[in-house]
Structure formats: C-alpha cells, structure tokens
C-alpha cells in the first residue's frame, strides 16, 4: 500500500493511510478478548449445572395439583418436587445439614407438610406447586432423652406426635396442623409391652412382646379415646420356632395400617382386628407396598431376582389373586436391593395404570410404568461425590494410525523397505480422504443425532470425568455435556478416604486407559482395589481386588513400566509393601512415602527399598506435629503429582530475580490443638516428606483450623477461623531460595542434599465469607497464572487471582525506585464478577477439582456437592484462543474489500498517470 500511495494526490493518500490504520485497529481489537466475565448469551455455553436431592427418605405422589409431581424428602435434608414426566427438580429447599435439618415427616395433601429437626422440631407447610413456605411453628419436647424415638403423623388435619417410653407408657399429643395449638393435654397410655422393636403403622403402634415361644402380637390405636389393645399369640400367624423377631412396616402405605411379620406374612389391621393376607411375601428381600386402586387394595412387591432382574408382582389384597397388569420385570435395572418408595394407581378407561417410584441401594431413583418401562431415572449418588479424576480421551483411529506411522521405533520395525512405507502412506492418505468425504456428506444432510465420538478434540477440552460417590457407585461422565457414559456399582466399597489414580492415559493406543480406585471393604476395612477403563467403564487389569490387609498408604510409582503403566504401591498396616503389577518391583528406586495419623498428629516417613527379591519399607523419620499435646491434623496438602513449574524465579521491580524454592516433596500439614493459654492453636508445618525435615512452620493463636488448603509451586495457602476476631482468614506462605540459585538450572532437586532453609514470606487476609472448598487452577504447562478457586457456603464459586493473596508484595514507584511492600487491603474483595457460576448458586458445595485442558490458557473446573457444576476458566484470559463471538465474516469481507480497493486504485492511478503523461 505504501508503493501505491506514492502515485496519488496527497489528500487521497492521507485518507488511505487513515483507512489503513483503522483497518489494523479493527483486526487488532477483534483478536484481543476484552471481556472479563461472560455475556448473557454465553450462559450455559461453557458450563453446566446438575441439581440433585440425595437419597430418598420419604416420597409421595402429588396427585391433587394440576401439574403432576412427586414430592420427596431426602437423607440430605432436602425437600423437593420432581416433575412426574421428566424427573427434573421443580423446586427444592435445602435444609441445614446438621440434625436440625433432619426431615422426620413428609405429608402431602393439597399442601406439603414437613416436620424437621430433632427437638425442637419445626412444623412447616409448603405450597406444593411453588414450594413457597405457608406456615411454620415449632414444637419443643420436655422429655429430652426419649425424643429420638418420636413418631409423627397427620390425622384429620391434626399433627399427632407419639413418644414411646419403652416398657412403661406411650405419650400422645395432638396439635392443630396449621397453628400448632394443642388440643387438650398430652395423653399417657399405659403400655408396659413396648420395646425398641416396635413399629408404627399409623395410627396403630404394634409390638411383639413376651418370652420366646409365647410371644404376643400387640397393637394399639394410640389416637382413639378408648384404649383398646389388640393382642394375639404370634403362633397363630407364624411358626414360633423359626421366628426371629422380624416386624417391619410396609415400605409405602397410606391406605390401611399394615406390617409384615417375619418377612413372610402380611398382616393388616381392619376394624380393630388383625387380618392376615392370603398373599405371602414372595422373596425375603422384597419391598412390599399397599396401593389403593379403584377396585380394592393391591399388594405390590418388588425385588431383584437373580435371573430376571428387577421383578414386580401384585396381588389383590382381598382375594389374593394376582393382578396380571402389574407383573413386570426389567433386566437392565441392577441396583443392589430395591425399595418401593411410592406407588400410585389410577384407572382411566378401565385400564389399571400404576406408577412405581423405586429407589435402589445405589441411591438411584427410577419411575416405572406398566410393563416395566422406566420413565426416567435419577442418579442421586452424585449428590455425594467423594473423589474426582479427569481422564483424557483417546485419539481417533485415524490419528492413531498417523502417529504410529511416524513413531520412529514402530516405523523401523514395520517398514523395512521404502515401498512398504510408500504404500502405507498412500493408505493413510486414502483413509483421510474418505473421512473428509464422509464429513462433507454429513454436513450436507441433516445434522447427525448421534453424540460425538469419544475421541480427543483438537484443543483437548473434551475429557471424561470419573466420579466416585459415597455409596460406592462409580460414574464416567462426559465433561462437555454432563451426560453419564457408564456406571459401576460396588456395594462393598467404603469410600472413606478413597483415592483415584490415573495409571495410564489413553495416549498409548494399543493400551487402554487405566484408572485405579483404592478404597476399603465396607465390613473388614481391608483394601479394595477397582481398576477400570475410564472410557468404557469396563473392569480391567486387577479388576475387583480384595486385599487381606488394611492399607496405610498408597502411591503411584514415578516411572511407568514397559506397558506405560504406572505401578501402584501399597503400604499396609504391618508395614509390608505390595506393588501392582508385581513385575514393576525392580523399578522402585528412590521411592518414599509418608503416613500421617489424623488424630495424634504423628507423621512418619518410609523409604522403599528393593533388594533384588522383595520390596520393603524402612521407617526413616517420625515427627509429632502436635508436640506431644493432643493435636489433630485437620488437613494436609501436597503438590499435584508431576507438577510442572514453568518459571524458576520471579522478577523483582529492580530487575533482579528472586528464585522460588520448589521442593516437589513438600507437604503442608495444618494441625489444631488445645493450648492452656490461648484456647486453641493452629499450627501449619511444611515438612519435606522424604527427609522429614521441617522447612517452615507458623502458629495461629486462638484459631480453629478449616480443612481447606492449597499448595502449588512455591506457594501455600490455608484457611482458618480466627476465634478472637470471629472471622475467617486465609494465610499464605511463599518460599524463596533467594537472589541466587542453589542448584544449577535443570539439576534435579534432592531432599537429602537440602541443607539450607528457604526464606519464607507470610501474609494473612480476611475473608468475609464462609468457605466450603478450595482449589487452584491447573494448566498444561503452568505458563498461565494460577488462580485460587473458593466455593463459598453462599453457593458462589469465586476465582481469586494469586496476586491478591500474594505474601510478597512490592512495586515500583513512579520514579523507578523500588518501594517496600505497600500496605494491602487486609480484606479480600470478592467481587460479584469474580463468581464463576454467576446466578447459578450451588447448594452445599463440598469439593472443587481442577484439571488442565489441552489449551494452555484453560483449566477445567468441577465443583461437587449437592449440585454438580462444571465450567472452564482462563486465568490469564484466552490468549491462545479467538474469542467466542469472533466475527469471521466481517474480517473476511474487510480483507477482501481492501485487496479489491488496492488493485482497483492501482489500476486507476496508472491510468491517471498515463493520461497526465499524454497531456
């Protein structure tokens, strides 16, 4: 353009120059992502939220209101309404997680009534369609000790509270449901026959009492004015010799008082008489429900049959004849044991239509219809996620072929001649052409409905999240959509302190990806190892492995074996070492482990040695972080395994470099213990886990520790509650080697050679919020800034740049001189725009997990708790990615127009020069 403008008149030239500049500004500004937070149209584009309610405790169909719903109350102290057609949450109330939020009663009529808490109880009425609170009153019992055995139910618009005092009497009080007004005093019914095996089947209280062989079945209507005790010898119903005291109320019943006896007989109470049903309990594990239909009551039983899977049988209560419409079996539903949570039947057009709400042992919830069809399922196990691992997807077959072609070793093996290589190249190119044509064809036709194949995308944003839940169910989830890809349920897995290791990524094509979950056996407490292919959910390798010892610690070996598999090292209670697979034992070298006892604050270190035959663990160090006083470790934070540190130092304002102390073996322990002078003290200690040396330590007086700490590179942060000022504070530590490097660049760090103590920078900030979880962002190469992500009890997920938390501060004055650390605001400002989840509040956040994406700028974040929330963050902005609404068309048009203008002006200019030459 410069050449062109020489030939043109000055004012035209000026205009062109101006245009030229403007144009580059347009290009420049469209390349830079100026946005800090997301725009309204980006909601849900990079993130998703899933809401859960937890394991169902009570449930009832709301058949009264027009929009059909299921009202559920859960073990997580959540009251919610689920859409009958889709299973989605219509409204939800999350109560306190402590015992004050325990739901004792759910009663659904036009209004929803709940009783929550444990002395004092709160009685609340809710609007069933909106979930709005209508009324509330509290109920306090005088008798504290027995309060746990309280029973509530609603009868004739009265709330009945029954309090049995075993072996003595039963106290019954009735309250007006709306106001809490007590109708008369509490009545005490003498009942010396009560014991803790009694069941309530409102309004009858039923017990089995008496000596072995002469037991009596006793039942009492506790609400009637005249005390009328039903009593029958149990021998009339069951064989006394085999009877072992089984008395259970029905799982779902709001029709008639009934219970099962000895898991075999079903007994009703009709007209103040026991009435035994002709139908017997089919399977001892069956869940029994009594459902009211248009022509009489129906007994519905459901259980998991070994051959047929989930099975339902229904019998008419009166005649005992089977109701064939309700016979169903479903092989696909495998959920351990099942329970009929609720059932409803209607009879439109002379056809019996029943809907059964079934909960499984694995916390799943299914709504079933006639013929065993599952209308929808909810995986409520996800309300309690205990461990998370992000797993890479494998490359597509085509990419794998190309990779193997250019793999040096492989190539040398396969293509001895130049011709073999040439044909191979042609083949690959033909394949590529094929996929291209297929892709074009697909683009022409209607967009394909099939979900995208599970292959790695160009930016590495697509991953699989392996989620281990409290109940022992393991899920594989697509991170982009949040859809469940596979699930695996292991009932005997105790997930306390469960660990998940990625032992092989999907990067090595002939080998599959390999994830190992190390937990405990529910009963014995011994180690339980589950190895799974995270892409398909199949068990691989060790599969399900029961160890015969309890485990102290486990870790991955730092180098892979020939199959690219990282071996798993297990240290058991007797300080013996096992390695899986056993063939990897010779690879063990310079391997260390530490074991921290939570309740005594004793930490010991082990060195693992391989003597040519077997592995052994030698205890090398032992420290008492509580200093002998009864302290406990609240949290320990180590660095992420194989963490990369991009820059070894930090440039100071005067252009000198302050080198970071990057010790990969450093572990932060935060302990809490009593102190005679300062109430509680919190001690934070950085221990080198290899040598056992204490690197830094500091103490907070009159404080209580919170189980939240982050630790990456050379910096650490942990949260504690300051008792003196009654606020939460965050303490940050940064470790520096100083102005010169201790080791030459690139030299391996050795804990045994560490004889120098690093400089420690400390700072503390006030956090005006209640934190529930903390994590740092992780990126592929650690080039990007690190941000700390805090989940607050208010439901926000807040991103704080490390710069705000920095322990070492300082800057340049205007004249270029270095100024000492400026007094920073002592309180961390958590702006509303720092919230990652904008207006989508998270109920009870518990954990945050961050994983790197293939893009350096991006980190993937998953917050778990009652809700799951996934998003991606770019701490240094998306410097390697065009912004989301980048206008490709505008830029193309502008460029094309400019090129056109250039050539046309060139043409006109040459014509003008020619004309001028002729003049």
């Amino acid at each position: 353009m410069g050449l062109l403008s020489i030939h043109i008149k000055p004012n035209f030239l000026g205009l062109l120059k101006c245009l030229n500049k403007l144009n580059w500004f347009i290009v420049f500004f469209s390349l830079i992502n100026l946005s800090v937070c997301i725009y309204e149209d980006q909601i849900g584009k990079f993130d998703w939220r899933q809401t859960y309610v937890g394991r169902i405790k009570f449930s009832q169909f709301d058949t009264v209101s027009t929009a059909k719903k299921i009202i559920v109350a859960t073990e997580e102290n959540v009251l919610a309404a689920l859409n009958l057609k889709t299973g989605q949450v219509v409204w939800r109330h999350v109560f306190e997680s402590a015992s004050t939020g325990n739901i004792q009663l759910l009663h659904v009529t036009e209004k929803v009534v709940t009783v929550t808490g444990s002395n004092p109880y709160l009685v609340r009425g809710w609007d069933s369609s909106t979930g709005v609170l209508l009324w509330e009153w509290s109920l306090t019992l005088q008798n504290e000790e027995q309060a746990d055995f309280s029973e509530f139910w609603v009868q004739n618009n009265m709330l009945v509270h029954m309090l049995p005092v075993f072996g003595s009497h039963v106290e019954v009080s009735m309250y007006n449901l709306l106001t809490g007004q007590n109708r008369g005093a509490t009545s005490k019914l003498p009942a010396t026959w009560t014991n803790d095996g009694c069941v309530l089947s409102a309004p009858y209280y039923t017990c089995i009492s008496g000596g072995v062989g002469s037991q009596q079945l006793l039942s009492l209507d506790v609400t009637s004015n005249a005390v009328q005790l039903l009593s029958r010898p149990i021998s009339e119903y069951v064989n006394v010799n085999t009877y072992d005291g089984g008395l259970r109320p029905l799982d779902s019943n709001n029709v008639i008082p009934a219970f099962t006896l000895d898991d075999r007989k079903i007994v009703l109470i009709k007209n103040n008489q026991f009435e035994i049903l002709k139908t017997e309990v089919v399977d001892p594990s069956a869940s029994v429900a009594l459902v009211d239909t248009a022509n009489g009551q129906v007994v519905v039983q459901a259980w998991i049959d070994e051959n047929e899977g989930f099975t339902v049988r229904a019998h008419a209560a009166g005649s005992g004849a089977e109701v064939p419409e309700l016979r169903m079996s479903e092989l696909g539903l495998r959920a351990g044991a099942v329970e009929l949570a609720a059932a409803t039947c209607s009879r439109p057009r002379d056809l019996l239509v029943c809907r059964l709400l079934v909960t499984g042992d694995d916390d799943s919830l299914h709504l079933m219809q006639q013929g065993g069809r599952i209308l929808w399922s909810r995986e409520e196990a996800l309300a309690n996620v205990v461990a998370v691992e992000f797993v890479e997807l494998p490359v597509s077959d085509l990419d794998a072929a190309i990779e193997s072609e250019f793999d040096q070793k492989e190539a040398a093996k396969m293509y001895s001649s130049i011709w073999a290589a040439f044909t191979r190249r042609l083949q690959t190119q033909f394949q590529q052409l094929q996929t291209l044509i297929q892709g074009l064809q697909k683009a022409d036709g209607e967009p394909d409905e099939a979900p995208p194949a599970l292959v790695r995308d160009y930016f590495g944003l697509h991953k699989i999240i392996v989620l281990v839940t409290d109940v022992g169910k393991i899920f594989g989830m697509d991170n982009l959509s949040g859809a469940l890809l596979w699930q695996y349920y292991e009932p005997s897995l105790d997930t306390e302190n469960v660990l998940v290791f990625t032992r092989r990524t999907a990067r090595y094509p002939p080998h599959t990806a390999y994830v190992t979950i190390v937990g405990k056996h529910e009963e014995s407490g011994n180690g339980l190892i589950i190895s799974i292919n995270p892409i398909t959910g199949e068990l691989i390798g060790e599969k399900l492995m029961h160890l015969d010892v309890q485990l102290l610690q486990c870790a991955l070996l730092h180098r892979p074996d020939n199959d690219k598999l990282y071996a798993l090292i297990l240290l058991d209670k007797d300080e013996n070492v096992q390695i899986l697979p056993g063939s990897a034992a010779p690879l063990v070298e310079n391997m260390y482990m530490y074991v921290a006892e939570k309740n005594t604050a004793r930490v010991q270190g082990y060195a693992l040695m391989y003597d040519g035959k077997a592995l052994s663990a030698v205890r090398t160090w032992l420290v008492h972080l509580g200093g002998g006083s009864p302290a406990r470790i609240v949290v320990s934070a180590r660095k992420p395994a194989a963490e990369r540190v991009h820059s070894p130092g930090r440039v100071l304002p005067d252009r000198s470099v302050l080198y970071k102390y990057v010790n990969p073996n450093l572990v932060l322990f935060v302990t809490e213990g009593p102190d005679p002078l300062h109430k509680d003290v919190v001690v934070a200690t950085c221990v080198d886990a290899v040598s056992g040396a204490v690197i830094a330590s500091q103490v907070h007086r009159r404080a209580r520790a919170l189980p939240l700490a982050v630790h990456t590179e050379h910096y650490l942060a942990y949260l504690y509650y300051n008792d003196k000022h009654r606020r939460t504070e965050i303490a940050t530590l940064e470790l520096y080697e100083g102005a010169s490097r201790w080791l030459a660049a690139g030299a391996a760090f050795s804990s045994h050679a560490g004889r120098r103590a690093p400089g420690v920078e400390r700072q503390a900030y006030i956090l005006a919020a209640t934190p529930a979880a903390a994590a740092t962002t992780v990126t592929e190469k650690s080039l990007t800034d690190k941000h700390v992500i805090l989940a607050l009890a208010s439901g926000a997920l807040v991103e704080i740049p490390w710069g705000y938390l920095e322990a070492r501060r300082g800057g340049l004055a205007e004249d270029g001189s270095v100024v000492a650390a400026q007094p920073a605001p002592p309180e961390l400002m958590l702006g509303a725009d720092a919230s990652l989840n904008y207006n989508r509040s998270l109920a009870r956040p518990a954990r945050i997990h961050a994983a790197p994406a293939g893009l350096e700028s991006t980190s993937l974040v998953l917050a778990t708790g009652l809700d799951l929330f996934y998003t991606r963050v770019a701490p240094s902005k998306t410097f390697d990615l065009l912004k989301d609404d980048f206008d490709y068309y505008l830029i193309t048009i502008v460029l094309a127009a400019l090129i056109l203008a250039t050539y046309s002006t060139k043409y006109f200019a040459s014509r003008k020069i020619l004309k001028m030459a002729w003049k």
Partner: protein
Amino acid sequence: MRSQIIALLTILGVLNYAACIDYDGWVNIKIEHSLNCGRDKYCSRGNISLKSIRAGSTSLIEQIPFTRQHIAELQNIAEVNGFYTIRTIVTTADNSEGTEFFSSVKADAFIEKGLADIINVWVLPNGAVIAVSFQVTNTTQPLNKDAKSHQVYSNFFLRYVELAPIPDTASYVQKLEREREAREKGDVKDNRSFLAKYWMYIVPIAIFVMISGATNPEPAGAAGGR
C-alpha cells in the same frame, strides 16, 4: 573415654523470635543410633541438654566418638545405599516420659562428610518439641580412615515456630488516613482561578465560535444583496 564438644550454636534472630515463647524450661535430648549396639536395637550416641529454651545459648552436646566398629557398620549400610537412622528422645519439664523422634541421613553421605551433621530442633511457643531432624552438612572434610576414633561434629540449631502474621488492618487504616489527608491538602492547594483550570476546554469552544461566526455572515449578506 568421652570427649565433650561445645557446639557452635546459632539462634536465628534470638531477640525477635524468642519473644513468642510462652514458657521457659529445660530440654534434654537423648540421641541414640543402631550402630555397634550388640543385641539392643538402639544404643546411645550422645546427649544434648539445654538449660533454657528461650535463651538457648548454652547447650551442651556430648557425643561418643565413633570407633572402627562403628565406621565398619556404617559402611555396610552405605554399600546398600541405606539410611543411618537416629532415634531421639526429648524430655522437658512438662514431659518427663519423653517423646520419641526418628530421623535419617544417607549413610554414604554421612561418611563422605566426615561424620558432620546438623541437628534442627523445632519448638512450639508452648515449649513442646515437634521435630528433631538430622541432616549432613556440606562441609568437605573426608574421614581419616586410619584414625582409631572419630569425632562426630554436630551443629545444633534451635528453631522456633513463629507466630503467624495477622491481617494488617492497622497500617492499612493508617494508609487510608494519610491518603485522605493528602487529598484534603490537595483540595486546599488547588485554588487557581476558573480560567486557569479550564482554559483547555474554553479555548477550542472559543475558536469554534469564532470560525462559525466568521463564516455565517456571508450567506446572510448574500441574501440581503439579492
């Protein structure tokens, strides 16, 4: 035969840190190792006694010299790249039973550095010891293999667990005060006239008015002329 070594003792910032020690008291550290012990698992290597945690300056390290037998056993460990493990039992006035600590150094490094080590003892403000760790020094004085007995050179450091900083509210409030004062002063200073302050806005407007005033009469005059 027992030789006494008065160790070089360094207290890091005595004045600064010792202030956060709540109690004062004595500490006795019994050092044991498993070299040349006969049938016992551990036998004595020496003893460190400290009269005052707060002062810390008068500590006495008594250690047995290593005989040839000791060195031979140490070399056996070094051959398998093993660890020389030291057990310490710390007794204080409050804790008469003693607390047990372990620490290890690489046996080969210990021989190489001529049996010189650093002992770090970390003390909480309440006087309790949380860790006793041994490290080899980085001095280079090779072991004289022919000597009958070898001294163990130990440097003893007493390290205090520091009091963590608290959020610095006071200085920030002061800073805000200073800024406010500066602003107030600034307001007083800026008492220039209206014109002096805003001339840069007034001048362009004036020029604009003048230009438009100069061009307007022309059409008016033309109209009048017609």
